């Protein structure tokens, strides 16, 4: 059985699905990275991912177009962002507990709407893979890297975009200043809350996309589809030391573990009780990762602290 796992074709499957499975983590953790760099902790992205996943499923099934699903995920993500921004920036609610609230809202809402509006899940047309011309034809390499659905390419592109935005733009400078020393930024005329509003909206849209990336390639939705991926994405921000490239590395790591577990199942290497054990691998890995990455070098000093000029 093990020899079947270590064949070229099996390893290609594992590596290709590593990248595919990393995508939801990557969208969510990139968005959370931007938010945390500006001082906003959002534990609710798990809930936003669920809402993004459900709305993309629903929109795609109603319109028959997976791209309408992507759009729906962005719109609902944005709405959830406005809600979170209102609660944390205007009402100054404690961010940790507000995030848990958003998670529970997403979990409950998608469950109810799914039963009400859908009932029995009908598979929808997912996003078709885009084979990159020429590159996709390279043996092995092409199969691993260049035969994915568009959201996969988009997520990798966003790693570069996020890095450039953070390090090379005035908006990025504002984000870093607001996350480290909001009072200082304020005295220079930078609006702390407006900067945070933007990072919250971007982060929630990306969490919505993360939900879409869970649904659209596979074409189905179920209750609690995300099963903790949003929380893992938050952990990946810490793992990645608040850098997009670090979030990328972490997402690949978790994608790889999931891919290996899937392949074990597909090849019948594990079954029954052992398969339940391997299914726990991501959870165990999360704990291990967080234990190793207990250092806080790079954590924004104003993380999860509401800003009030007079306070």
């Amino acid at each position, binding site marked *: 059985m093990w020899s079947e796992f270590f064949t070229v074709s099996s390893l290609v499957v594992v590596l290709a699905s590593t990248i595919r499975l990393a995508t939801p983590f990557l969208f969510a953790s990139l968005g959370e990275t931007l938010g945390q760099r500006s001082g906003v902790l959002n534990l609710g992205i798990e809930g936003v991912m669920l809402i993004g996943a459900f709305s993309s499923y629903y929109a795609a099934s109603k319109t028959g177009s997976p791209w309408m699903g992507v759009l729906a995920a962005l719109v609902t993500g944005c709405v959830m962002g406005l809600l979170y921004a209102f609660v944390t920036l205007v009402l100054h609610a404690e961010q940790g507990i507000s995030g848990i609230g958003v998670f529970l809202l997403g979990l409950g809402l998608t469950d109810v709407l799914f039963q009400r509006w859908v009932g029995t899940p009908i598979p929808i047309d997912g996003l078709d893979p885009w084979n990159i011309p020429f590159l996709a034809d390279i043996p092995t390499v092409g199969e691993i890297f260049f035969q994915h659905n568009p959201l996969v390419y988009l997520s990798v592109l966003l790693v570069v975009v996020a890095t450039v935005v953070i390090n090379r733009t005035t908006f990025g400078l504002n984000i870093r200043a607001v996350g480290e020393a909001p009072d200082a930024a304020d*005295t220079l005329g930078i609006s702390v809350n407006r900067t945070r509003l933007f990072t919250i909206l971007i982060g929630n849209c990306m969490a919505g996309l993360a939900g879409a990336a869970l649904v659209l390639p596979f074409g189905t939705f179920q209750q609690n589809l995300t099963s903790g991926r949003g929380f893992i994405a938050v952990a990946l921000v810490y793992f990645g030391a608040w850098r997009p490239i670090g979030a990328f590395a972490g997402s690949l790591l978790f994608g790889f573990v999931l891919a290996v577990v899937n392949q074990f199942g597909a090849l019948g290497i594990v079954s029954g009780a052992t398969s339940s054990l391997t299914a726990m691998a991501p959870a165990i890995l999360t704990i291990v990762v967080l234990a190793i990455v207990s250092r806080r070098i790079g954590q924004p000093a104003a993380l999860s602290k509401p800003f009030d000029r007079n306070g």
Partner: protein
Amino acid sequence: MQTEPVAPMLEMRCISKRFPGVMANDSVDFTVLPGTVHSLLGENGAGKSTLMKILYGLCRQDSGSIHFEGKEVDISSPSKAISHGIGMIHQHFMLVPTLTVAENVALGLGGRYGISDMRPIKKRLSEVSERYGLKVNHDALIWQLAVGERQRAEILKALYRDVKLLILDEPTAVLTRNEVDDLFVTLRQLTADGKGLILISHKLHEVIALSDEITVLRDGKVSGHTRPKETTRDQLAQLMVGRPVSFTREVASVGIGDVKLAIKDLIVRGDRETVTVNNLSLQVRGGEIVGVAGVSGNGQRELAEAIFGLRPNESGEICINGVRVVKPSPKAIRACGLAYVPEERMRDGVIADFTVTENLMLVDYDSESFATKGFLKLRAFQQRCAELVKNFAVKTATLESKTRQLSGGNIQKLVIAREFSSGADTLVVAQPTRGVDIGASEYIHEQLLLRRRNGSAILLISEDLDEVIALSDRILVILGGRIVGEVSRQDVNVQQLGLWMSGVHDQVSA
């Protein structure tokens, strides 16, 4: 100077601002002429900060108007203030520690197409640095810089924005003497350039040395307006406090008693594992105040913490009242009869969210008079605290007020009330009047001298040289964790102390 009248750069007319329960500013008028320094004096809570926050757009006045360069202006945010040419150097620097000096300057300036290009910014920054002699590495991260350099970065940030009027809030509070001299050179250059400066300070001799005009605030109102030539330190202090204040402390000689605190060959490591107290020995006798003078960061904090058992000592001996402390812990050391006033009163001296009563009882709460079988005797608490608050003149609304709501001076009086009433007669007192206003400082000094008269042994660790000289029978100078000089009251020579503190003596005596 008096010949032709100059149009004022800034006029604040009849500014009033009310906070719940307090009139922070009550019809305050304040004017600054170009090319001059106008100092704003006042005790904590007199309304200086509020007035400056209004000017910088961090807070809105209830009534009154601001005129800048002849026009009435509406300053609703810091960016408005900056666009008018008003800059502010905050007491707690407004710098982002994880960014470079240049990036801090670039913050909020925007950039073409949102791309932050540092090259033009660095170029202009070099010009500004050179012009005013403000040397600092533009590529260094702020957290890597010394305090003086951070301040220069802060000033550069304002000058880069072409400020015409610069507000300096307690700019010398954190600087060493040399850094203060450098700062004054820069400030004189700025006024020569026609810029207006507003200086907020507690230190009267600095205000007198640097200002053209002085306005004193008390309880939100202007209590005096004068010029340095027409006033004295004592007059200014009286305007601030509202009653005569004396700076000369009556120090009657008292009989010196037995050695109460003896430290021998103490070695202590600091937070970064380096040796910060290095083979230090000293003795304090009853009826004696021994002052430890020195520039901040030369082992004072570690020394105090080691004596009180808050920091392990690597080697050496600490004897209190003739008993060698074997296992130092705060509790054991208190039992030996030593009390401690820590330098960080908000962190180590009180629990800010506890009430005044609770903080006053933190030491004695489990003694027999205040607890039986683990239950607190709350009535006895109340009685004792009412007494202490009265005896030590702690100003608080009620005994049940949160300690956080008290002013710095009153929190310090609270700590001193608790420590000095604990029955201990060996006292380690660190920075007792840092950030404390003149009235409370005077009171605290009197309390220290009173304890001395009663035969207590007092180790006074302070970075305020004037304070050390005024109170101490003997002065030790600490540098790099060692005592590098000792002098008794009658032989004090300020210059010699300054040389010891800056380490120049090494070359002289070698």
